[in-house]
């Protein structure tokens, strides 16, 4: 397998869940290139995945910098100042943007295939030669504050912030990707730190380029060699502090200043994401079978009794150990406690006894079709791969993850629930609105 990768030959697509052959190559400077010719004509989607995000924000007072950087990357270079950069993208008819998660930052653009050489030049230039002055920096920090403001009207944002800040005390997952409000408000004074951040992380060894669409891999490799091989390898590794074990349940409450429906979040400390143990897929299965639309709890609370109008759960899918969380929006504040108790009881049931085998088989079938339905454009193919590439640097991780799922047993699910959905690792946060 390694030899195949090194030679840059297409990997076999048959028999694996990811249906497209792809080419994975490493440049001498550490930059990884993944090219996927798809059967969608004329369009190319480019995803540049950088392995830095809010997880890397380990210094006090510096939360939100990875996300700020996502903004600053649009502030230009000596060769392509913002106006020229935008003009090139505009001439290409490109839809371009970026996003930041807890573990990675992704820059993406989708455009007509004839514009690939120019867009790769443009991106190579800004990743190597980003230049912004302090005045532009200070202005951009205000756009980030504006983004915080846009989200702040929604109580679900505050709920998420509070769950993180309560469940974590040491690890940088303590703050959300946006960062703490106080840190965002202090950003304008941190110009020097921003340059340091760029110097540390915007390096080839942190970066993977995904090119999906109407492309020839050899031609893409030539274009990448021409434009990206001058990028210099860096020397920085962040020391991410480990979160100590949680030994007792924690709770917190948010008083929302205006009327809203109450929320409850139940979060359990979970493991790091993995495609070589059953734990990650087992907890994913719990999130769907215990709390998904077809689960008995959802059917009871949302469809039959109609006490809850939102119920969803997310398994831990992070580089470091993170949370298995369940959130519910409750129609009547008087039901908040009972809903919390039913969520906890459902988690306990999954730990107590294996589920019905038929339900697991239905889930496995659902996931196979769900994955196929996701891949409905070159952009969605690149977008889907970006998440796996951020975790394991290779699209092969998709196949490994779904292979693990295919082997998953009802006993594996019970074991994972018993290990992680425990009282001592639990954090419960409630949020209620004002009467008027």
């Amino acid at each position, binding site marked *: 397998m390694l030899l195949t990768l090194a030679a840059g030959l297409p990997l076999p697509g048959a028999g694996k869940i990811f249906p497209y052959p792809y080419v994975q190559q490493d440049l001498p400077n550490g930059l990884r290139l993944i090219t996927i010719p798809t059967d*969608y004509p004329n*369009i190319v989607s480019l995803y540049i995945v950088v392995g830095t995000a809010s997880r890397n924000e380990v210094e006090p007072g510096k939360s939100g910098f990875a996300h700020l950087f996502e903004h600053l990357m649009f502030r230009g270079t000596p060769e392509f100042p*913002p106006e020229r950069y935008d003009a090139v*993208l*505009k*001439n*290409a*008819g*490109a*839809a371009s*943007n970026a996003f930041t998660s807890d573990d990675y930052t992704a820059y993406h653009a*989708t*455009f*007509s295939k004839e*514009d690939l050489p120019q867009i790769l030049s443009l991106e190579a230039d800004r990743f190597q030669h980003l230049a912004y002055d*302090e*005045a*532009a*920096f*200070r*202005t*951009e*920090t*205000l*756009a980030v504050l*504006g983004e915080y*403001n*846009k989200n*702040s*009207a*929604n*109580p*679900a944002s505050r709920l998420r912030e509070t769950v993180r800040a309560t469940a974590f005390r040491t690890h940088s997952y303590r703050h959300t990707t946006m960062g703490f409000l106080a840190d965002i408000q202090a950003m*304008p004074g941190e110009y020097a730190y921003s340059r340091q951040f760029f110097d540390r992380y915007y390096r080839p060894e942190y970066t993977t380029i995904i090119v999906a669409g109407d492309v020839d891999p050899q031609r893409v490799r030539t274009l990448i060699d021409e434009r990206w091989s001058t990028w210099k390898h860096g020397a920085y590794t962040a020391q991410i502090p480990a979160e100590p074990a949680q030994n007792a349940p924690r709770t917190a409450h948010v008083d929302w*200043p*205006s*009327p*809203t*429906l109450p929320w409850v979040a139940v979060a359990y400390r979970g493991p790091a994401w993995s495609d070589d143990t059953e734990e990650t897929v087992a907890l994913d299965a719990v999130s769907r079978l215990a709390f998904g*639309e*077809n689960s008995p709890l959802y*059917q009871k609370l*949302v*469809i*039959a009794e*109609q006490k809850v*109008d939102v119920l969803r759960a997310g398994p831990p899918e992070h580089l470091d150990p993170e949370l298995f969380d369940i959130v519910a929006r409750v129609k009547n504040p008087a039901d908040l406690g009972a809903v919390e108790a039913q969520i906890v009881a459902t988690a306990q049931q999954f730990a107590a006894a294996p589920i019905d085998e038929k339900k697991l088989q*239905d889930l496995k*079938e*659902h996931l*196979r*079709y*769900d994955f*196929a*339905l996701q891949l*409905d*454009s*070159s952009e*969605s193919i690149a977008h889907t791969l970006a998440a796996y590439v951020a975790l394991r640097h290779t699209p092969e991780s998709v196949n490994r993850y779904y292979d693990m799922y295919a082997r998953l047993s009802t006993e594996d699910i019970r074991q994972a629930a018993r290990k992680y959905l425990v009282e001592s690792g639990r954090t419960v946060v409630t949020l209620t609105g004002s009467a*008027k």
Partner: protein
Amino acid sequence: MKEAALSLLLATAAFAQPRIVELPGKSPLVTIRLVFTTGAAEDPANKPGLAHLTGALLGGGGTKDFTYKQILDAMYPMATAVEVYSDKEMTTFVGETHVDNLDKFYGLLRDMMLHPGWRADDFARLRDDSVNALRVGLRGNNDEELGKEALYNAIYSGHPYGHENLGTVAALGGMTIADLQGFYKQHYTQANLIVGLAGGYPAGFAARVRGDFAALPAGTPDRVDFPPPAVITHNQVTLIQKDTRSVAWSLGFPIDVKRGDPDFPALLVMQSWLGQHRSDCELFHRMREVRGLNYGDYAYIEYFPRGMFRFEPEPNLARHQQIFQIWIRPVEVPTAAFSLRVALFELDKMVKNGIPQAEFERTRSFLTKFVNVLMKTKSDELGYAIDSAYYGIPNYNEYVKASLAKLTLADVNAAIKKHLRADNVRIVGVAKDTGKLVAELTGDAPTPIAYNSPKPQEVMDEDKIVAGWPLHLRPEDVKVVPVASVFEN
């Protein structure tokens, strides 16, 4: 090939009901879009929200034979679902399935449309969802969407478009299943249905769908010749008062231009240059990038709901009447009045000076290619094809490319002068301290801005004009409403 096939199918539409738009292909995925050309414009005056709730119940409730739970259970292994959304003139049901499961999925979808169960528990749940979407989703959680929706409702006051699609809390409370059944009987007809099919469905499938949906009453198409909205004779401001961190603005006025009209391509170029989301438009550049006022500032000539979560509107929100709107994402309280003035200043500048030649060329080039990106999935392409059938224009990709190729800068600037203006504008703000804002908007004193970094002289000079930009607001032109009253009655 595809273009010819599509035109042929549309050409036959006049002779067979329901109309079918087909985009056959080799993909193992099949998309079905059922668009009923009916919506909130057909709500009875005392039952706003009826069209929306009827669509919600069809797409989110059980059938005669199956409860909603049984439908969810049946769809689960197939990883399929029915998505429903509705607007003034269209109610849309979308499903996508792997071709392996087409028969089973289509059977469920068909029964949901043709044999609804009208169950009381589904009705109660979905009516609650509507009420919560109004009170919590719009009023509580999303200031910018609240402002945008309130702007539309203000502009179309007294017009068939003049209420929220979701309705009002009071009207929803009085609604019955019989009301929904009455709406269904009258408006879910063959004449109001456009079926869209895309992907690798088998030969004969379209004929089967047509045969099945011939069970609907033949009917006559819903009206599209609505009266014009009221003329706006002054700047008018509505401030929605709520406890919030920042201030969101929306402003605009009706335009007599829709897709397919002669000036539409010219205004499309204007929109893209002035305010298309995330394409470094002029408003975004002057307000966010130069001044750091907020997260983004946009302008549109077609209805664009759910903009908080999307970069382009979904297809199948076609309307025969549209407005020009500017959408200013939440700004900090001290710069709220200034931000509104910048937007009006930029609008005024564009109306007076038009668009520069180089920007016209660049924007036209962008749109000519961007139309490919708009149709990156088969479902999107199908949605646009259905809209084109509704508007009576060639497929959207061809329509945009052909009309832009013929367009000149003079056409664009003439259309701007003809249809746009920077006065007689309806303005909606969502803010906490409305008293201070009213004083700033109606007073004579300028509302300057203080920056956290040095700005070029050109910006400082412009700011002096902006800070005192006249709003010509008389006391009676500004109205403050508590958020708790919005969408209630």
